[in-house]
């Protein structure tokens, strides 16, 4: 069954689920926003950021995008607020703040 996987929800009738619950695509989890789990958020101070990128690999949620050797803004749809990035930043450019 080649149902459009992006349209499958917990209210879909059985005939609309994929056969064997296979998913014919990669990275569909991006539809699910784990940012809602957050109880504290990282705040970026771009002036202090030296683009060393040490924060990028430590993010468990792939929420620090890097392109052409430079990091961008946090993907707040997914960031769970663990604070590892703030902890490893040698320049104090990331600060964790309570709240979503």
């Amino acid at each position, binding site marked *: 069954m080649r149902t459009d996987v992006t349209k499958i929800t917990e209210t879909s009738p059985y005939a609309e689920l994929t056969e064997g619950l296979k998913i014919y695509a990669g990275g569909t*989890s*991006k539809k699910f926003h784990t940012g809602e789990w957050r109880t504290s958020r990282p705040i970026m101070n771009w002036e202090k950021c030296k683009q060393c990128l040490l924060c990028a*690999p430590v993010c*468990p949620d792939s929420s620090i995008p890097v392109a052409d050797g430079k990091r961008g803004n946090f993907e707040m749809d*997914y960031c769970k607020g*663990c*604070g590892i990035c703030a*902890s490893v930043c040698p320049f104090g450019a990331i600060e964790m703040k309570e709240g979503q």
Partner: protein
Amino acid sequence: MNTYDFKNTMSKPERLAPGHRMCAGCGGTIAVRAVLRGLHPEDQAVIGNATSCLEVSTFMYPYTAWEDSYIHNAFENAGATIGGVEAAYNVLKKKGKLKDADNFKFITFGGDGGTYDIGLQSLSGAMERNHDILYVCYDNGAYMNTGIQRSSATPLYADTTTTPVGSHSNGKMQNRKDLASIIADHNVPYAAQTTLLGNFKDIHTKAEKGIYTKGAAFLNVMAPCPRGWRYETSEIMDICKLAVETCYWPLFEVENGKWTLNYEPRKKLPIEDFLRPQGRFRHLFKRGNEHLLEEFQTEVDRRWEDLLFKSSRT
């Protein structure tokens, strides 16, 4: 192998998408991301996965966090499963049924439960048969998925839900199994041990070697679990560093039987430094339990000396 260019490596397209349900601060997904950066961007992969936190969180129907093809089978059979995929690839290529697909790599992930314990036979078989795969164990030292029960990777004296500290117990009474050595003794082309450090050069280099070594490769990655180890989520990188600096978790690799120690601390730190930040070892720091720490240190020293000996052989 190219020399490690951190910025270029970090600029590669992400192969583990966000939106997965792993815990905040999870070491497992940091490890997975690092391993997947070892894949060259032009190559495709089939990712295998033993049942684990990683599996139930990264492929929760209909959401897959994997950008590559992915297969989860069961808890105890990740080795055999990815072996089957690799065999299929070889024969379909041979029969000319896979056009434009000569760049598949096979990587499978298991936790220590699925790798050290219930899946050991399947892993051992896959290694002995020398399938062209990389098996990565993200070792967080207990069955975290089911609520922190001890595994054979759990360190001595750790407080877990099946080795609880009590009036008659100091936690787990046995030493942890040394799986990387066991796999190295399968005489596979490549076996290595690493963890999450600094700019991730060590894990990246080993993942890339493992993926691009012809034949079976195994990578054991210490991946701390803030919930099971009971430390502040933000402190993960310090914990990993202390594991290495105390020689609790040495970085080594075994290439075709040749052991190489990748890092030797200038000054070996006492094991207390690694244990103290973790709630699972809190009881070791009570007055009267000094002998337990001594025992722990003795075992760390013994294994370190053994590794020094193995890696000094030429």
